[in-house]
């Protein structure tokens, strides 16, 4: 998988660029009406480009997909791509531009929480509709945003439960490592509450934060090793974001931390991130998501085939946020068909209750809290960079965006 040659990728990028132009040629005639505009708000430059460019391509793929099905309501779909350049205020500006200048009907975008927080007031003011495809810390519910990634209870808590189970190694000490921003902070706060409720005291929890793009992990990994050598089975829960993962895993491998001894479960590492790492020393470390590329089943086969055909590279990987876009986009299509309009005021209620057999192999449903019900999968990293499921929930789990493990949420009226 990591053998993609430079050439391939360039072609892929160009293909992505030309996608919206190429779409009409595949398509026969469309009915009357101006095209439906789909805003794409993902960073194509700057630090987040590494994660977000694939999402841009996924949205473009879905637009092409919708057009190949004859469009929506007889109208053609048209993507409007902008580059917010990993610059958070620019996200807000570009969101306003998409809504006011380009008058998009729906927007797919954002990866980091801060970018979502930056555009949220804009979408609320201008009554837009945003699909946010990444797992996040919860504690939010905007009428103008649909969250198609996981809430903490759909990822973090099941993962820790697994670590504490017999199969997961019966961890008694937990290291919480994260990048210093809201998602890890909140997730770890929730996890601490959860661990305390399971009888793991604060003396057995180590919590440490590093800046974005942290590259020198020697000291921290050495400290983890020492922490683990105090007589109890230890596991690492990593909310390390993006770029910092490669040096982190390299250090883990080089300092000889084996999954059998100190398993590390990550919430932000998917197939895309693993593409940049030699995974042989990491076999057995874990990732918790709601979708893996290796998930068996027809919906996933179709999704993978569609992606690899679109990007014209049979080796490109899929990952969880891409699946979240796919699911969100198709649910939006269903809702538009149901509402018979793209007007946000009509599509929003129509979205609630939409169901889709998602590539993760389960039927997901859009809940009234604008989040999805999703299965939780725990996977082990393989030598080829893929992730194999070793544990999964029996059915889908309903998203709890307001965590019961955050005391301030206690007085929030349960809906």
């Amino acid at each position, binding site marked *: 998988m990591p053998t993609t040659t430079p050439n391939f990728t360039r072609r892929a990028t160009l293909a992505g660029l030309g996608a919206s132009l190429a779409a009409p040629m595949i398509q026969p005639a469309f009915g009357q009406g101006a095209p439906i505009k789909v805003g794409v708000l993902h960073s194509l430059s700057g630090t987040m480009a590494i994660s977000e460019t694939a999402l841009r391509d996924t949205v473009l793929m879905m637009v092409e997909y919708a057009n190949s099905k004859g469009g929506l309501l007889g109208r053609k779909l048209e993507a409007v791509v902008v*580059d917010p350049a990993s610059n958070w205020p620019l996200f807000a*500006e*570009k969101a306003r531009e998409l809504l006011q200048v380009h008058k998009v009907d729906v927007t797919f975008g954002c990866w980091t929480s801060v970018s979502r927080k930056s555009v949220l007031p804009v979408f609320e003011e201008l009554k837009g509709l945003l699909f946010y495809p990444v797992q996040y810390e919860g504690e939010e519910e905007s009428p103008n945003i649909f969250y198609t990634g996981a809430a903490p209870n759909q990822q973090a808590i099941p993962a820790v439960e697994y670590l504490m189970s017999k199969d997961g190694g019966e961890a008694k000490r937990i290291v919480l490592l994260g990048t210093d921003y809201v998602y890890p902070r909140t997730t770890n706060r929730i996890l601490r509450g959860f661990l305390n409720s399971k009888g793991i005291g604060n003396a057995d929890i180590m919590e440490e934060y590093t800046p974005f793009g942290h590259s020198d992990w020697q000291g921290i990994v050495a400290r983890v090793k020492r922490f683990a050598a105090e007589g109890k089975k230890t596991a690492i829960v990593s909310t390390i974001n993006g770029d910092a993962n490669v040096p982190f895993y390299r250090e883990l491998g080089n300092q000889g931390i084996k999954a059998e001894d100190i398993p590390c479960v990550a919430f932000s590492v998917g197939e895309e991130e693993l593409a940049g790492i030699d995974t042989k020393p990491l076999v057995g470390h874990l990732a918790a998501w709601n979708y893996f590329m290796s998930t068996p089943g027809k919906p996933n086969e179709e999704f993978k085939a569609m992606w690899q055909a679109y990007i014209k590279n049979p080796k490109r990987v899929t990952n969880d946020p891409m699946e979240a876009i796919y699911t969100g986009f198709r649910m939006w299509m269903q809702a538009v068909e149901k509402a018979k309009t793209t007007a946000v005021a009509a599509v929003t209620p129509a979205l609630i209750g939409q169901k889709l057999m998602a590539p993760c192999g389960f039927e997901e449903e859009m809940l009234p809290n604008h989040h999805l019900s999703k299965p939780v999968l725990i996977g082990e990293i393989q030598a080829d960079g893929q992730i194999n499921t070793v544990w999964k929930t029996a059915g889908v789990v309903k998203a709890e965006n307001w965590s019961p493990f955050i005391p*301030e949420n206690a007085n929030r009226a349960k809906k």
Partner: protein
Amino acid sequence: MTLRFVLLGALLVLAVMPALNRLPADSALHVSDFLISITGKWITYAILALAIDLAWGYAGILSLGHGAFFTLGGYAIGMHLMRLIGTRGVYGHPTLPDFMVFLGYKELPWYWLGFDSFPYALFMAMAVPGLLALVVGYLAFRSRITGVYLSIITQAMTYALMLAFFRNDMGFGGNNGFTDFKELLGMSLNTANARAVLFYASLVLLVVAFFLCTRVAQSKLGRVLVAIRDAESRVRFLGYDVTQHKLFVFVLSAVLAGLAGALYVPQVGIINPGEFSPGNSIEAVIWVAVGGRGTLVGAVLGAFSVNALKTWLTTVAPDLWLFALGGLFVAVTLFLPRGLIGLFSKAKS
């Protein structure tokens, strides 16, 4: 003479923009909300550019950390805006902002006290950048750190601030910074009214800043600064305390940058440590270079034109805009050492 007319015309256009915004959307003269909000943002950038030009173009102090002053001003007003959210936050806490609630703060840190008052916040938006400039400037100028060394030091300053503000433990909201502001001075943000008010406030500040900078530039102080820029040690032998003069202009420039930041934040609706990034400061310096340094007008022109170009390119060529922008920077430094203004005067003569 012509330049003055162009300037006046541009100012007039800017001044009527919010009024044109009220016209019906199908009117030919209608100005969209989007244009109002980005122009408002550009005006604050233009003030930042003025501040940089005063220090760089006149006194030869190339600070690559002016973004830090801008951002600190923004944080000061951001803290005020956060306090004003009150119980409308996610957790409905009367005094603590949301991020403090979920980080488990029990009470406001001492440095947050007083920010519920607008005059205090505005004062801090000037005082904090001013004080930082005073300390850093005093240490650097006293040791006669000049030229690229000063640039590197100021760059390290903004970098260190960025790293520090990224920490959630600092009590400034970490990476997310502050968002989801509700109101300012009793007016609800995210309304056309508030945007117009902020737009005019920025415009007034731009005009005031422009005249202030012109006043400095045309006074004997301005000539001392130019003298310092060209032959610093010779100025000393004439009996001028170079440290004092540089410090004066550096602090003035930092205060202006802070005020610009204070107006920027309510308009874009977010402030976070990313604004401290050294790249941002360098970019702001490049606006000045593109417009033409040491002319004040050039700084304003540069800020507007580069940002307009950027806004346009990030939409029409999302994959290629960095080539265009990078190419522009290279071309301007190579072929237009006097910037766009230089082009003007060349065409005239």
